[in-house]
């Protein structure tokens, strides 16, 4: 998914090979990660797709089933991976992820600490941001979850950028070996205030910490504990509103008045080359994910 070797650029025009991870795209809300294997087939409502037909085709290709149904084969990116990964925990989505990377000031070469690993949705984007020379050390106290995350990072090809440790960060803090070395720390823990003193030890002066919590009470306690060693405390909520788009000739469900106008308008449409396109917000949306609290380690050294 990521390129660490400067001689090898990320090239999506690359052809699909045996063993590659591809994102099978049926629809924008129906995708799936598949490991390509010569003998395997993919079966879905559109029919049976032979992997052997895929090998040698470039990413982004449309491939057909035995019944003539089709899917697209996409190269994996952290965004697509977030949509297809198996949920072992609640995960972070694109709006929060993007904001976290930007606000933590993560750039190539950074050393980043994370806890918990969870399903590795954020971890994958952290790895992209520190590549090619940085590293993400992520910790989860759940042994199997850490193992599954490791398998996932192997699968997505980012394992050289990520190390998964099994550790109770709330109880034990981050390992001393990272003391004063971390550029940024991310916490997604039920009681972040227990891990904040340790996070403060790990960060370089002026380094940034982020704590993600769904509940405002968690934010309140986290901020209370941040005030002693941190400065520039800021708490945000970030959401996305999505829009659906229709053209005027396609207004079956709108009330009669508008429909009439559209049937009249269709004569005009014949002549004009661009149909009238309309957009409106989708009625379903996430109302809340979590609060993002950022703080900067006070710079006390001379």
């Amino acid at each position, binding site marked *: 998914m990521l390129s660490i070797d400067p001689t090898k650029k990320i090239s999506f025009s690359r052809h699909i090979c045996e063993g590659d991870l591809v994102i099978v795209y049926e629809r*924008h809300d129906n995708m799936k990660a598949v490991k390509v294997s010569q003998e395997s087939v993919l079966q879905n409502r559109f029919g049976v797709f032979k992997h052997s037909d895929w090998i040698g085709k470039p990413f982004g290709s449309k491939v057909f089933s035995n019944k003539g149904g089709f899917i697209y084969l996409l190269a994996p990116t952290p965004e697509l991976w977030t949509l297809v990964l198996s949920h072992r925990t609640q995960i972070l989505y694109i709006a929060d992820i993007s904001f976290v990377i930007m606000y933590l000031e993560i750039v190539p070469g950074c050393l980043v600490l994370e806890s918990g690993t969870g399903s590795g949705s954020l971890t994958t984007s952290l790895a992209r941001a520190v590549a090619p020379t940085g590293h993400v050390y992520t910790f989860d106290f759940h042994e199997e979850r850490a193992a599954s995350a490791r398998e996932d990072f192997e699968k997505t090809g980012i394992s050289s950028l990520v190390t998964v440790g099994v550790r109770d960060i709330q109880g034990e803090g981050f390992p001393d070996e990272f003391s004063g070395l971390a550029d940024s720390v991310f916490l997604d823990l039920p009681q972040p205030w227990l891990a904040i003193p340790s996070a403060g030890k790990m960060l370089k002066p002026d380094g940034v910490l982020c704590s993600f919590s769904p509940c405002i009470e968690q934010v309140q306690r986290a901020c209370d504990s941040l005030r002693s060693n941190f400065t520039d405390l800021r708490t945000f909520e970030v959401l996305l509103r999505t829009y659906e788009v229709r053209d005027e000739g396609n207004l079956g469900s709108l009330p009669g008045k508008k429909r009439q106008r559209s049937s009249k308008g269709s004569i005009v449409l014949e002549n004009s080359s*661009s149909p009238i*396109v309309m957009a409106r917000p989708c009625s379903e949306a996430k109302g809340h994910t979590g609060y993002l*609290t950022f703080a900067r380690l006070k710079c006390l050294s001379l």
Partner: protein
Amino acid sequence: MSENNSQSGSVQNPRVTWEGCSVLLDINDGDRLVFARLSAASTLKIGNKSFPLQPLIGCPFGSLFQVENGDNGPYLSRFIPSIEGNNIQEKGDFQSQEISKDNRALVDNNKAQSLTGEDIDTMRRQGATGDEIVDALIANSATFENKTLFSQEKYRLKKQKKYAPKVLLRRPFARSICEAYFKKYPARIGFLRVDTLSLLLSMANVSANSDVLVVDMVGGLLTGAMAERLGGTSYVCSTYLGSTPYPMDVVRIFNFSDEVCKRIVRSPLTELSLSQTGSSEQINQQEDVLNMECLLNHQMPSSVSMEGISPPCENDISDLIPETTVSLVNKKGNSTKAGNKAPQQAIDSWKKNGFSSLIIAAPDLDTWDLIKDLLPLLSNSAPFAIYHQYLQPLATCMHNLQLEKMAIGLQISEPWLREYQVLPSRTHPCMQMNAFGGYILSGTKISSS
């Protein structure tokens, strides 16, 4: 191998300032933001006094400075806050004390303060520090004692800002640069909010060793943010219609190393196009004239009017204007400019392999016309993201991309960002928020065959 070494040294944004480095100065906790370049001669104006920035050179980013009185008058001096913090609201005794006081006895007759302006000037002449003046103001305020703890704290902060200003030394990052511009001169960066910028970078999968194409008509902020993510690997190619590249002054505010600057290149769209023929070039050049005119018409008034209606609070209109006259000289004394012409070898490689991502922020160009020409330059499966302040052009563009089957995973999204005040017993959303961060159309290019 040697290249690898130089790379790992140059990717990191250094944490200590040097002579000639670009910094963001945050005065009084975000009240005023000033971009500056540190040199022996540069100064910062606070109130009606100019302070040399020399003392800031060689200090770690994140350092705090306050005004101190020296033999040669006031100067900026490093201030080390105590570990426990200078916040007064320490323990949870707020709730208990809070209930007994309110503002029923408060009369707003402007007689509460017994110190006069002359008194304060006299104190200053006698060498009183800002904090001493603040203490004196509190001691001479008839109403201070009757204020609630919350409003006492508010009062102290307000006086501190005026009489004991603090300057925080910030690293210029995409985050801080975007926020500073958005706060003061949003029009210059096309009203691109920081969360929107962060989404564009994710949606287009901007990452090390990827070749990214950008149409940046937002002053270079986008180009700079992309280069920051690439860390000196591969190229950011800023393309433009016509013969004049779009300005990228904001790029200079980032403290990019030579290595990173070399990776920010420009190329006219005509040179990137796959079917490059003489006749098409001529046609393009005719269009160029039109485009240039339209550009000028759009840009000139906006920048002028920005100056005209700039907030009256401070006389720092020039704060955010990057120094165009000062040539960018880095610490080694040689200067590398970002935005050189793309090397032919790179262009050939892009023509062969395609770009691996694309971001467009071109409010003055027709989105559909642009994407029609740019999408074929991407490799298949490459993600792209288009920013616009208006919904309609993106809706039309999305519809056309669907009809022409050029892309999948198409989505228009609008980010929403709300900040919170978190304080003991006083947590709530901030009273003021920005209600609009623009729209993004994102998608993935597919094979046309």
